[in-house]
């Protein structure tokens, strides 16, 4: 199952803010085509963890390796240029703009028309629709404002956008936290579909019911400490809940 070289590896990473230990000795691996779930209750250090991976924070100690080389990011832009894309909870979208305009926001496709560069809206519309179809999302009207989409569909636009713009590691921050049952299932389907396109996916969630069906590997955090990383085969739902709640320590 994991014979590929890891896309991303963290070894004993710690982060301190003054005398607060936000994260201590956490290790994980992300492999292309697989989903790594980061689980933990509130205050477990999940946010700090993504911020380190996405380049917003520098780790205070430990190693951060991308494709086998150690890296140190000065800003999220550095991480992004390596293909580490983060889909935050607010999704970075303008609700009144149409799906295709949001999809290409900041990286608009252009078409030369005489001396002027035009927005290639035909290409943008077609590509946005096609890219979303590849993840299994059928947006009827690519011109409808993102604000009129359901929460799950909005997530899907953000995921499709990250995939299209060359993400190799996709970090999803609680994508199902505000969604209903059906919508959550849809989004988890998109997560699987993104992994199927050979991306390494990091799914952050506090909901074991969402994590278990899609994840290949589970990193469990509790109060800034790593409880351990588990392969799917070694884990049952009950065990996962026990580990997350911190009642039992990993053997």
């Amino acid at each position, binding site marked *: 199952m994991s014979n590929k070289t890891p896309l991303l590896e963290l070894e004993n990473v710690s982060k301190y803010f003054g005398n607060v230990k936000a994260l201590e000795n956490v290790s994980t691996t992300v492999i292309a085509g697989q989903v790594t779930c980061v689980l933990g209750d509130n205050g477990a250090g999940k946010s700090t963890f993504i911020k380190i991976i996405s380049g917003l924070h520098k780790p205070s100690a430990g190693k951060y390796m991308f494709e086998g080389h150690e890296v140190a990011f000065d800003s999220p832009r550095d991480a992004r240029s390596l293909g580490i894309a983060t889909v935050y909870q607010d999704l970075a979208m303008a609700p009144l703009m149409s799906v295709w305009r949001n999809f290409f926001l*900041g990286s608009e496709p252009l078409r030369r028309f005489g001396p002027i560069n035009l*927005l290639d809206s035909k290409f943008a519309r077609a590509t946005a629709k096609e890219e979303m179809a590849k993840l299994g999302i059928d947006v009827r009207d690519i011109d409808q404002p993102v604000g009129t989409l359901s929460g799950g569909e909005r997530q899907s636009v953000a995921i499709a956008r990250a995939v299209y713009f060359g993400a190799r590691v996709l970090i999803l921050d609680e994508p199902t936290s505000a969604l209903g049952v059906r919508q959550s299932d849809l989004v988890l389907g998109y997560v699987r579909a993104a992994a199927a396109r050979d991306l390494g996916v990091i799914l952050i969630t506090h909901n074991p019911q969402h994590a278990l069906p899609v994840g290949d590997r589970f990193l469990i955090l509790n109060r800034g400490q790593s409880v351990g990383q588990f392969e799917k085969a070694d884990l049952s739902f009950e065990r996962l809940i026990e580990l997350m709640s911190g009642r039992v320590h990993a053997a």
Partner: protein
Amino acid sequence: MSEVDGLTPTKTGDERITYRGPIKKLLVSPEIGALIGAVVVWAFFWGNGDKFGTAGSTANFLDVAAPLGIMAVAVSLLMIGGEFDLSAGVMTGASGVTIALMAKYFTDGGISLWVCIPAAFLLAGCVGWWNGFLVNRTGLPSFIVTLGSFFVIKGANLVFSKRINSLVNVSDVDKAHGYKFFKAVLGGENKFGDMKYRDIIFIVGGILFAVLMILGFIEQSLVRKQSISASDLIVSLIGVAGATFGVMTLHRTDSVNGNTVAGVVGLIGTVLAIVFYARARFEKREKIAGGFPPAAKTLLLLGILGTAVASLTGQLFDRNEERVMLQWMPTNLRLAVAILGGAFPLAMTIRSFMRGDIERRGRVISLLILRLPIICLVSLTGVVSLFQLTTVQAVRAVIITVAGTGAATCFYQARRAAGKASTKWFVNIGLLMTAAFLVVAFALRADSSAPRFRGGIFTSLLLGATLVLATTLVEASHRARTKADVSADQLGRRMILLGLIIGGIALAVRLVLSDGVFRMSVFWWMFFTMVGAFVLTKTKYGNWIFAVGGNKDAARATGVPADKVKTALFVATSLLGAFVGAMILMRLNSVQAQQGDGQEFEYIIAAVVGGNLMTGGYGSVVGASLGALIMAISKNGIPAAQWNQDGRFIFLGAVLLVSVLVNNYVRKKANEQR
């Protein structure tokens, strides 16, 4: 990798989302409210008096509207980008004063306008940059920052023009070098001869416009058949021939009676052409056999009532009566109005009291003693002052317009409600609606001596009746498309676009060439509107503007240089302010130091009336331009209708409120039905 049951991606189109036809798509676009508003307001003043809407007065009010229109373009872009510029108004004055003062006093003999005008632009650019810089850097609301700029510039205008020129206005820049050139480019009037083929161009253009619009809408709404039916197509072509004959004969002959045959042939021809064209190319549908839908009942009754009011009002009031209502009414009637004005709230109060529960009855004393007299007084004052302020002809025009459009809306909604339940009643209500159009048309024609009513309004209403009849028949017998069809949608869109271009050219030829004068200000207005609309919808910068106004953090997160975009918008607004200032200076050859003071709110009103959202992220440049047009029409139409000039402020306030409410309502409705 393991495949997980139930989570395999599937096509997950939401079955609750329905296909939006072309009309609904049109309704969600931001400028639609302003477009309808402009047409309604124009038609209102046009129908209200002979002075409005002639070629000369049109050229006049377009010239007056141009500065407002140009500024509305800039302000709407800024507003979509999420900011305001309260210094935009005084900027026009500042650039005028700068240019004029430099041209006269910079050296003893003054200096060339080739230096002064670029200098003014440079100054304006700096002001815009400063506004943007402060907003970005301090995070203060642009309302505060630009309010500061507003007062500083206003003061500077007065101080410098008084100190240097010892007057609050600076005039006579026409001796400066380069004046001729700039006058021609910015404030020129170009005379054309009266054009011989003007009318025929207008009519042919108008017909092509109508045909293309109808074809485009049909193309986008119906389902294409596999093959075209030849026999139906031939009937349709005969219809086209009839319609053409009708229109051409109507155009050539002047006598009312001689036109009847031509009119009837033309109308029947048009209906035949449309109905059989649809039969030839598009699929039919099953009839829905159902009874009269109760939902349509109230609407239908309201429609009939509105029609009756619209047709009878014309007969009851004299259209040339210019006295105010209260003077015109006999004394007894005045008393009756006063009593009604008081009695209405009394009735309402009693009604609410009768409905109320025990607890509310307990408050009866406070209600009767304290509130009722106040309500009665307010209502009475309202009614009396309304009649004191409005003339008979104004009330007449308002009643006819409101009742007429209200009736049309009610009929339309009733027809729509019936369409879901029963084909028979859909057709019946459609026929009734046609009849209503005809009744109002003949009632208005009979009443009036003005050729405009005999010709213009009558013809428009007949055309309306034709269109209602044709759409009723087409919709009743053809299946509406419920899916997008890429090639048909594209063809339909292109037809509509072509129609709009041809119609626009025809209208421009009619308006511009009829008076023989074309002012550069109008050209610049159109130019900047087109450039603004182009940048907003067709370039990546437009995408960025929407994004910084809609969600600045999101824009920044995706790599949009949000601060630069905002600064650029502030600079553009100031630069256009300078342009307008130069334009007015060249046109009038003098500038008041207070020029543009207070105008910034008119720019904002124009943008809001045009469907731009105050909170940013949504809007349209064309809409803002149309908003400016609405304001210009009312400014010009009110004196032309011989109403009190100061009434335009009342009108402006009402237009602002109504248009925003209508915009929001339409947008909400259209989005609900997505």
